[in-house]
């Protein structure tokens, strides 16, 4: 997935689009990640200043949510559902195999709502049902 390189100017331009929003901190962080692929540590102060919050407020939100990351992602992202419905069809074992092969790209997730066709995996934003290592490899290319 392609992201823009982080810059303060670009970040401030994006934050300006949220001026009218109520409770903007989380959506501001999500917008940073959508644009740059991650939340640069400079964003904490930018967002705090822009919306008149404390840096602690912004840091608190940034560290609460599993989705938000503070380091740039790799070229591919593989999320494997390891919740109960997918566990029932071998997701734990699949997660181990995929992690061994794609260590830096793989993370566990809890439920993509595809619980009748598990194991479910999201590869670069595309959902894969009845997932196998082979299917994941195909989707990754």
């Amino acid at each position, binding site marked *: 997935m392609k992201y823009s390189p982080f810059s303060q100017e670009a970040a401030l331009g994006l934050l300006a689009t949220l001026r009218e929003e109520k409770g903007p901190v989380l959506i501001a962080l999500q917008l940073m990640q959508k644009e740059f692929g991650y939340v640069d540590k400079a964003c904490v102060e930018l967002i705090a200043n822009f919306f008149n919050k404390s840096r602690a407020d912004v840091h608190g939100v940034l560290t609460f949510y599993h989705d938000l990351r503070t380091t740039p992602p790799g070229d591919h992202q593989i999320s494997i559902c390891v919740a109960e419905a997918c566990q029932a069809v071998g997701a734990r074992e699949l997660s181990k195999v995929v992690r061994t092969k794609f260590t830096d790209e793989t993370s566990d997730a809890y439920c993509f709502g595809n*619980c*009748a066709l598990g194991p479910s995996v999201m590869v670069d*934003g595309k*959902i894969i*049902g009845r997932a196998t290592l082979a299917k994941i490899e195909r989707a990754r290319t």
Partner: protein
Amino acid sequence: MRVFVPCDSAALSVGADEVAAAIARIDSTIEIVRNGSRGALWLETLVEVETPTGRIAFAPVTPQDVQSLFDADFLHGGAHPLSLGKTDEIEWLSSQDRVTFARVGIIDPLSLYAYCAHGGLVGLRKALELTSEGLIDEVTDSGLRGRGGAAFPAGIKWRTAAQATSDQKYICCNADEGDSGTFADRMLIEGDPFTLIEGMTIAGIAVGATQGIVYLRSEYPYAIATLQKAIDIARADSWLGKSVLGTTHSFDIQIRVGAGSYVCGEETAMLESIEGKRGIVRAKPPLPAVEGLFGKPTIINNVLTLATVPMILAQGAAAYKARGVGRSLGTQVFQLAGNIARGGIVETAFGITLNELVNTYGGGTLTKRPLRAVQIGGPLGAYFSTAQFETPMDYESLISAGGMLGHGGIVVFDDTVDLAVQAKFAMEFCAIESCGKCTPCRIGSTRGAETIDLIIQGVRVDENKKLLLDLCEVMTDGSLCAMGGLTPMPVKSAMINFPSDFTGAAR
């Protein structure tokens, strides 16, 4: 000539886009309608052809099957090994009672024309003729209870918010469907999003709210895209906005996307998250209906609750409450998941037995091994054994049986499951997802996982089982919300219903 190929993400997960592309490649003159899914997910990709006598189904279709479908003249219902005959006559579907899901899988989710042709907006038009009080009476009278899991009567919640005086009120739709084994909210939003918009608009009119917010989880990117398009269409059509269908009512809807937190499905944590804060649970009271989002009166309802309201108004409360049993009235959208042969959506009146759902509809396990356990109602729901399969599926019967219906998801496991491992996972999940505000949940979950680990290893098993039950009691009674309060349910039910997994002996 119209061919239907679902755009539901379950269908996409097994290649529906590729099937649609393969059909278009062979004959580009065919109109391919991307409908929602019929809910028979094991049959995806389920392709339908419109014929003068009705829609004919072919399933499960892979891109490799497409050429042979053309060879068999499937466009005119030709014979083919994948032909299932008329879709309306497939017993798995025809035996259901689709109310909330009446249009899902039938229509193009983003065609307002198809929506109205299939009974859409009838409920809203009726609502606009009623007084706020008359409208809330109708919802109350229908017996509709909150489908998110708490089963609180919708009409009573609405009345509380209607009676509150405020310059601003909100309708919040909880679409943070985080329970494993549940996907009805997602399918409704992807398959018939206008129904949800209509239900939210009706709720707004009933209580005098002008702003709706859908809190939709980030794990559902396809649902987010579909709902956003539907909202834009409803705005362009003067349904949402300053003047709802030409009346003096004003109502608009905004989507707020979640950020991967399970506890944000708890209603007060959800409010915090929409306010842009950490998803920390609030103490109740005050009830959100009195003091909710940004301190204003707020109705929080699940997707299915809101999406059922248009049908209730269109067909009348009496027709809805004629279905179901006891105090569980109407229909429930059950979701069959996990290790199951025929998984998907079964909407039917409350009172059907677990056995009918899991075996008659579900066809037992996918692996063909003996079925050993089912978990009902998500990660906080109880594990049941096959000895309890005659339990009627309604709110009260499940509580009596030591469980809960939750959001109606049923996850099936075969005989390879180890319930001690599942119990440990319940505690681990709570430790990962706890918001951290109250001690029993934050600390108890970690201690619980450690204690179950000792039991699995065979360390002082009886002593640790006693300790675990004591911990469960503290979590149940001392937690602020259902996250810590209900995590003991899967743990205790596993211990009670599957004692042989908690002996410390290796399975």
